[in-house]
């Protein structure tokens, strides 16, 4: 390995050849500011368009300033990261960016979490020397994501996520010069595009150009309505990230505090989506076993592989891009929707509440869930199974608004009966978790034997596409895993081309699975945050006494009292769904 030695701010540093000035400076704990650079190392995404020009530095002997994110270190280089020339240029460039940005910080959805705002503070912007025309665009309100394009600073991170990582390709740079901006084709609303609402664009947006639809107000309204029974469910990935919004280290588990906060907020029942995740395993696992055994018994009609269907971004994706393969995914609804369906039937009956008087709120790490709960098939007489879905970030804001000191909250437990869950449900929150949970159950149901080791290490990790085989009593079950829709596309194309023969595939739309969801606290491009969250999830699983979904006593009870057995007619009506060819639907819309 070739090394080069250089001086940054008069301090010597030695780095591998090819290292950028930006990274060399980091070695010296010099954090050069930037607005567009993004490095998700573990996901192989390095976005360095060199567009914002905030990270410029002075390099001795160079005519102009160098963008540190893209300039490689050279032997003997002398770099200044805070000379007068650099500071003046950096602040002027920022003033320029701000001059084409609305000045509505006080009422902005991103206020306090905005990279641009932070940068203005950091660089000491104190006046607005450039007044002039501002570019204005039509705002776009979709069921899940709001695009306020006036706030776009052309960092192009969303474009990278949407195109390179997700291969959805809904967002592209359009127009040029002062009018240049990122938008869907023909500047139509996302609603009229192939957007999967994965929310990865929202997750990386430095400003409020892309934000999630805020349902907190609706939730507050429901909570203050005495006629309503408000039930809340919290997804597994939320507890591993919520703490970050209150200054805790990434990977801090806050399950107990979260439950207690939700109670203080006034929810009548604080339940766990994990309960529904166990239920999902029962249904999906049964379907998987059924399809696999039929296949092994020589049934030619059975379609394999079976694909997981709990990720709404992923469901949208295959509805748009693989309409010819709609019969492959499991018909099992996602845990959010299973929860809603059971809450407004089984639980409502138990409580003797009319479903119209019950409001089901979900706390999700996800943006697509907001869309999912509005799907027509998940409603009964126009009354949705899940009324509102709010993100981890929205919950954090809500807690702060309610003057709750999160840190000092006691740990509390979920309510019964829909608060009980196993370790298998918890790991739904990270890539590989759903299929591991399904395998745990399927193995025991299939073989009739107890698992010798509950942890399937082969299914874990951060590789975009992974595969493993599990020995089911002499039968080799081949499993594929992908996270990120780009990886999903690769895997699916291989399946389509007959190049891959998996029995089952788990797909999550977001990097790392739900822990990296579009509704999670912003990781600002730091993938170590995602890793810490995953670790926390596996820890929670390990700490649970029950770690297989079919061992969940309340699930067993639910089947005994209400559903019969997995795959029953009632289970089908409440817990399964069907898919649509959205490409065809979209053409009709146009």
């Amino acid at each position, binding site marked *: 390995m070739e090394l080069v030695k250089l001086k940054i701010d008069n301090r010597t540093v030695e780095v591998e050849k090819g290292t950028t000035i930006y990274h060399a400076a980091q070695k010296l704990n010099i954090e050069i500011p930037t607005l567009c650079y993004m490095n998700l190392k573990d996901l192989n995404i390095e976005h360095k*368009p060199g567009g914002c020009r905030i990270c410029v530095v002075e390099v001795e002997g160079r005519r102009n300033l160098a963008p540190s994110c893209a300039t490689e270190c050279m032997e003997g280089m002398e770099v200044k990261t805070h000379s007068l*020339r650099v500071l003046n*240029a950096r602040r002027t*460039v920022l003033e*320029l960016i701000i*001059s084409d940005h609305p000045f509505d910080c006080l009422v902005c959805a991103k206020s306090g979490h905005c990279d641009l705002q932070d940068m203005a503070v950091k660089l000491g912007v104190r006046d607005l020397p450039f007044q*002039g025309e501002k570019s204005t665009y039509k705002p776009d309100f979709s069921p899940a994501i709001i695009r306020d394009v006036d706030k776009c600073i*052309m960092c192009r991170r969303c474009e990278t996520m949407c195109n390179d990582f997700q291969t959805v390709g809904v967002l592209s740079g359009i127009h040029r010069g*002062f009018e*240049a901006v990122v938008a869907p084709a023909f500047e139509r609303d996302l609603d009229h595009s192939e957007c999967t609402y994965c929310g990865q664009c929202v997750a990386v947006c430095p400003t409020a150009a892309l934000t999630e639809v805020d349902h907190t107000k609706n939730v507050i309204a429901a909570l203050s309505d005495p006629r309503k029974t408000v039930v809340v469910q919290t997804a597994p990935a939320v507890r591993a990230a919520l703490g970050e919004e209150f200054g805790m280290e990434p990977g801090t588990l806050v399950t107990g505090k979260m439950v207690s906060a939700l109670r203080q907020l006034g929810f009548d029942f604080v339940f766990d989506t994990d309960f529904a995740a166990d239920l999902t395993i029962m249904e999906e696992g049964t379907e998987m076993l059924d399809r696999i055994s039929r296949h092994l018994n020589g049934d030619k009609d059975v379609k394999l592989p079976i694909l997981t269907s709990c990720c709404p971004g992923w469901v949208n994706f295959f509805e748009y891009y693989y309409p010819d393969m709609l019969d492959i995914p499991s018909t099992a609804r996602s845990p959010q929707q299973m929860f809603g369906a059971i809450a407004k039937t089984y639980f409502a009956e138990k409580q003797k509440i009319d479903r119209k008087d019950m409001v089901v709120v979900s706390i999700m790490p996800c943006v697509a869930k907001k869309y999912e709960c509005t799907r027509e098939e998940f409603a009964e007489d126009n009354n949705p199974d899940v009324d509102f879905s709010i993100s981890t970030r929205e919950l954090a804001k809500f807690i702060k608004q309610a003057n709750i000191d999160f840190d000092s909250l006691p740990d509390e437990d979920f309510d019964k009966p829909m608060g009980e869950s196993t370790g298998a449900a918890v790991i739904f929150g990270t890539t590989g978790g759903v299929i591991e949970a399904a395998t745990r159950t399927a193995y025991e149901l299939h073989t009739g034997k107890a698992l010798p080791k509950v942890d399937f290490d082969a299914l874990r990790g951060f590789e975009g596409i992974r595969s493993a085989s599990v020995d089911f009593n002499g039968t080799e079950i081949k499993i594929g895993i992908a996270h990120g829709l780009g990886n999903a596309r690769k895997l699916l194309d291989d399946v389509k081309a007959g190049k891959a023969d998996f029995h089952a595939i788990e797909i999550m739309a977001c990097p790392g699975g739900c822990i990296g969801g579009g509704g999670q606290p912003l990781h600002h491009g730091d993938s170590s945050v995602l890793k810490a969250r995953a670790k926390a999830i596996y820890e929670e699983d390990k700490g649970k006494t029950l770690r297989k979904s079919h061992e969940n006593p309340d699930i067993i009870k639910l089947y005994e009292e209400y559903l019969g057995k997995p795959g029953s007619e009632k289970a089908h009506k409440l817990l399964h769904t069907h898919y649509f060819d959205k490409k065809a639907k979209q053409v009709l819309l146009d």
Partner: protein
Amino acid sequence: MAKYKMHMLVCGGTGCRASASDMLYENLKKEVQDNNLEDDVQVVTTGCFGFCEKGPIVKVIPDNTFYVSVEPDDAKDIVAEHAIKGRSVKRLLYTDPAKKEQIPDSKHMGFYKKQIRIALRNCGLIDPENIEEYLAADGYEALGKVLAEMKPEEAIQEVIDSGLRGRGGGGFPTGIKWQIASKVDGAQKYVVCNADEGDPGAFMDRSILEGDPHSVLESMAINGYCIGATKGLIYIRAEYPLAIKRLKIAIKQAREFGLLGKDILGSGFDFDVEIRYGAGAFVCGEETALIHSMEGDRGEPTFKPPFPAQSGYLGMPTNVNNVESYANIPVIFNKGAKWFASIGTEKSKGTKVFALAGKINNVGLIEVPMGITLREVIYEIGGGIKDGKKFKAVQTGGPSGGCLTEKHLDTPIDFDNLIAAGSMMGSGGMIVMDEDDCMVSVAKFYLDFTVEESCGKCSPCRVGNKRLYEQLELITQGKAKKEDLDKLRNLSNVIRDTSLCGLGQTSPNPVLSTMDNFHEEYLAHVTDKQCPSGVCKDLIRYEVIAENCVGCTACARNCPVNCISGERKQVHEIDQALCIKCGACLEKCKFNAIAVI
């Protein structure tokens, strides 16, 4: 019927006419008549000889005698001596300032060397749609020679030795560029000809492609051989339909003659060329943007390194050169690097083609050796300023360049001197401006262009140039303060310092160079709220000069907003509240009765 034995050509260019060449013409005619020579000698006026400094000029053919500074009274001598006695009038001959000897024959005169056509050698000489004419003009001989007799590194060395620098604007040594590309390994290398000429006011590339397309194809093949590329791409503006048509014909013919395709001239070397179209984006003149455009994407530049030579078209090593650079290559091989290097200045060899335009008499495409002065270009080739107005500035380098002024008139033009003077060579637009041009407005014009053509990728160019334009607009509207000039300068410097590509890095040049050279004019706009050139609408008004107005009503009839009133034969009046300052009245008035104040 007359069969003339002699013609006397009298320069009728503006410059010569100003020094009474028309009277000279009349006198010559009269002398010819008086001596009964009408059937033998014809006297005619001609266009400008481009030697206005020594005008009026008379040229006598067939012997090509060239008389300079001829006065009307000299007509008698010329006819008596030259036409009758057949000997030249010695005192009117041109004296070579260096050698101090008189030169009778125009073909040996220094000023003819002002223009040497190398890149344009075949333009206007051969039929561009006929490969045989190109072949007869040494066409493809350089390629033949290189393929048969030279190793790639020898051929590259020849280009290095010639000192040829990129004619697209940057001035990077062409040979060195080839050398770098030749040393990078790649499964498939590419040679790209940048024919996306976008400078407003430059059209030399178009002229070369229209007049001599084969020279570009030949050079690309040589380039391919040198760097180990078998594929060539020409990225050409879709706005050049004729050039595209001729290129297509040329490619077809070259293939038919075996000068493109497999095993060219029995050398075993394969090379072929395809055309890719631009679609109207100035920034695509930048190499990386051009490559992205050829790949079917938005033409947004990317940071260099990696340079195209390392990772270019489809990620492969790619060499990009501009049309005019290529047009020079065959000559370098045919006549030798040494010959080529003998032309020009120490660091800028050869010639440069300029599109001479603006307020100049002989608008046209000229090719001059590097090192020529602006004065020579404007007054000896360009025939001086139009309508006898005063020279104010020359803009070179298009939107990336700057203005050169009177003090630069005697600076030798080459890459480095132009940069030192705050402008640049650019692709070769040379726009002459006179006293009627407001330099703030000129800077604004270029910024308007940059704002429109910025790709929008980096913030300083996307937003900065817009703000720069707006600042300039405030100045032309009289709404700016003196302090704003400092802001303008700081903003210009920052844009230059921080932009991603050449477009943004040079876009403030028109502002900075006009601020440096015409500071007073900026001051007049911001402090006195006046536009000295009478251009900025918000700072001027049109008024009727009562003593000159005869009441012809021409102004009133032509005013588009009917704001001029007055009875026939009465002094007219302009209603300032309604006037849109279009200047129609000024244009129409034959009595100098409208003034700009």
